């Protein structure tokens, strides 16, 4: 009875040893990067746009010699917008697929759950979309970076714009999770700071993320005294929301409307001219806002490849791959802690200009873009942005002390 067991154990041990030896990287092995995005459900276009941005960066880099002489290979996992799924996906990517680095995350809730586990995985993560201030705040750690605008930055910009309007009674419609709630909290705090006279209504509206029917919330706002509405609904939800709102005459009412992520090209493409004119739309990156060579090249290549202009999610994901290229080349290795260290305080050129990861909290100092929806673009089939404002990313950021991040 005992003999065969011993043999079995020996065999497995030898197998394990061979497997471990097999994973040590040869120079010609590709560098593997894991991408975790929402690839199913109502927000899946965001994952697809991120993939498009990444694939563009990967093919550009691979064509020009790769990173440290090695090609990049991407492996994607679907987060389903759930923290527990994303955490398992990250563990799978790191321990089973041997990825060297991670990019991704579309949802604040997912980011809040996953970021605290990053030090255990010992691999760097660049967040390209999820905006909760906490992950470059209380929950920050040396392995987590964010290349996209966060809620605090965007809401400080939003509050400035809101304070210049005539609206006095503000309410919100936002998804019922951290993103919706935090958008409203930061917006309210900043707006009160600038203009203590405004009234932040206690009657707020938080439909479930992925809810298909927004009409009860739309009706409630129309029936209230609100004259300003912060709308942080996003993704497929926002498409549904705008269609239902325009059917109910929401846009004919005299309201100041601020869509915190309304100028996402995913949404603008889906809506076409059903997105009303004359409302405030924000995005973390507007493809027409930056007059530099990298942006021109990126937008041109993107439109040629995919037929529509890049969204902020595509841009963030695209830039993140280049951030890894720069960091890995600076570190001279793909070793997780070394690459994470190289990202610290790193400055790079991206489509949205010069981007620096702030040393105190690993948040990139990138600029929120706000504008007013204008006439349709003759070629791209989406609304243009007029009165475009590019806020200084550092000016609208919280100070490192305010973030609560201790690195």
């Amino acid at each position, binding site marked *: *009875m005992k003999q065969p*067991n011993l043999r079995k*154990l020996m065999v*497995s*041990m030898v*197998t*394990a040893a061979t*497997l471990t030896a097999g994973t040590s990287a040869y120079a010609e092995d590709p560098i593997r990067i894991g991408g975790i995005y929402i690839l*199913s459900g109502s927000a899946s276009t965001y994952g697809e746009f991120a993939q498009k941005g990444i694939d563009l960066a990967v093919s550009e880099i691979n064509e020009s010699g790769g990173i440290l002489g090695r090609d990049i290979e991407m492996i994607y996992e*679907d987060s389903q917008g*759930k*923290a*527990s799924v994303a*955490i*398992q996906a990250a*563990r*799978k990517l790191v*321990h*089973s697929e041997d990825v060297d680095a991670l990019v991704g995350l579309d949802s*604040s*809730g997912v980011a*809040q*759950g*996953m*970021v*605290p*586990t990053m030090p*255990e995985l010992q691999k760097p993560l660049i967040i390209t979309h999820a905006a909760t201030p*906490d992950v470059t705040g*209380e*929950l920050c750690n040396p392995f987590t970076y964010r290349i996209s605008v966060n809620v605090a930055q965007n809401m400080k910009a939003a509050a400035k714009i809101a304070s210049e309007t005539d609206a006095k009674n503000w309410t919100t419609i936002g998804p*019922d*999770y*951290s993103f919706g*709630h935090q958008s409203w909290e930061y917006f309210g705090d900043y707006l009160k700071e600038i203009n203590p006279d405004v009234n932040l209504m206690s009657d707020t509206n938080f439909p*479930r*993320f992925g809810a298909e029917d927004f009409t009860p919330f739309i009706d409630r706002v129309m029936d209230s005294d609100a004259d300003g509405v912060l709308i942080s609904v996003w993704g497929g939800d926002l498409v549904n929301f705008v269609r239902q709102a325009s059917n109910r005459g929401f846009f004919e009412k005299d309201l100041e409307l601020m869509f915190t992520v309304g100028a996402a090209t995913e949404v603008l493409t889906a809506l076409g001219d059903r997105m009303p004119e004359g409302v405030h739309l924000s995005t973390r990156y507007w493809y027409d806002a930056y007059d530099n060579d990298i942006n021109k090249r990126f937008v041109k290549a993107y439109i040629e490849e995919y037929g529509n202009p890049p969204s902020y999610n595509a841009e963030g994901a695209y830039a993140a791959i280049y951030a890894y290229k720069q960091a890995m080349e600076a570190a001279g290795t793909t070793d997780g802690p070394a690459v994470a260290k190289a990202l610290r305080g790193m400055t790079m050129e991206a489509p949205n200009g010069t981007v620096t990861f702030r040393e105190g909290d690993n948040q990139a100092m990138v600029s929120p873009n706000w504008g007013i929806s204008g006439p349709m673009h003759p070629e791209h089939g989406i609304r243009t942005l007029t009165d475009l404002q590019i806020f200084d990313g550092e000016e609208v950021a919280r100070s490192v002390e305010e973030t609560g991040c201790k690195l």
Partner: protein
Amino acid sequence: MKAKVVLACLLLVIAALVAVPWIASYFYVFIFTEILIMGLFAVSFNLIFGYTGMLSFGHAAFFGVGSYATALVLIHLQWPFLACLLVSMGVSAVLALVIGYLSVRLNEVYFAMLTLAFGMMIFAIAYQWRSITGGSDGLAGFTLGSFGLGIDLTLSNPAVYYHVVLAIVGIASLVLYVICRSSFGLVLKAIRQNPERVAFAGLNVRTYRLVAFIIAGTFAGLAGGLIAPFLRVASPELIHWSTSAEPVLMSILGGTGYFLGPFIGSAVFVLLETWITSFTGSWMLVLGIILALMVVFFRKGLLGTFLDWWMEVKK
């Protein structure tokens, strides 16, 4: 002889489980942690389902509440891990007493519907009480402190956590096994087969059912207390009725008539889910087909079917 073979097999399985971090790819440490925790959840459920014959659709309430209890204690009090688990069990036990007291008086579909309703009530509370439970995001961002009892363990190391889970699930299963084999367990089986006869024998069926319900809830709470530090989130999904369906499926897959059946079911469920989702997004479709085949052709579950086949071969 038969007992010896069973014992030898069991020891072999335990030895293999202990060795997982050294012999399998690191990723399987996570998979087996999940299998063990979900297995305990399913075994606790099978105490009322397979043994007592009560089909609950709200068992995730105890599992989820257990996970929230551990998460809350870790966030606000930073108690040692073992203390967190005791809190989870305590809270779940009290909840099981309340829900059980109101539910066990009913039978079959009424019992199933009532437990479903209570489960969804708990879900709604967790989903909406944002200031305490984190709303739809749940609770995240807690760190694991000490183990307790002065034992020095790095719980954030997945291999260490796996061994801790293995030990705790092992002890809990042993306790549940002893309960099932005791005279109390025999009464539960009798209740499943014929509650009227048990009542005529002078036993209070309702009390027995309630006690079984509380024990099952307590151990589901323990499983929940183990899952929160593993997932690093306690989220409302853990309470949702779809989570309540998992131990039902696992028990049927593995075999409800055997103590270890739900563990087999959990292993098959988690492994299949991991493998199939690597190839296709339609994991639920595949699961549905497997379940339909199981229920139509292999009523005794994988373990039962295997044991029958084994007996046949030995003849």
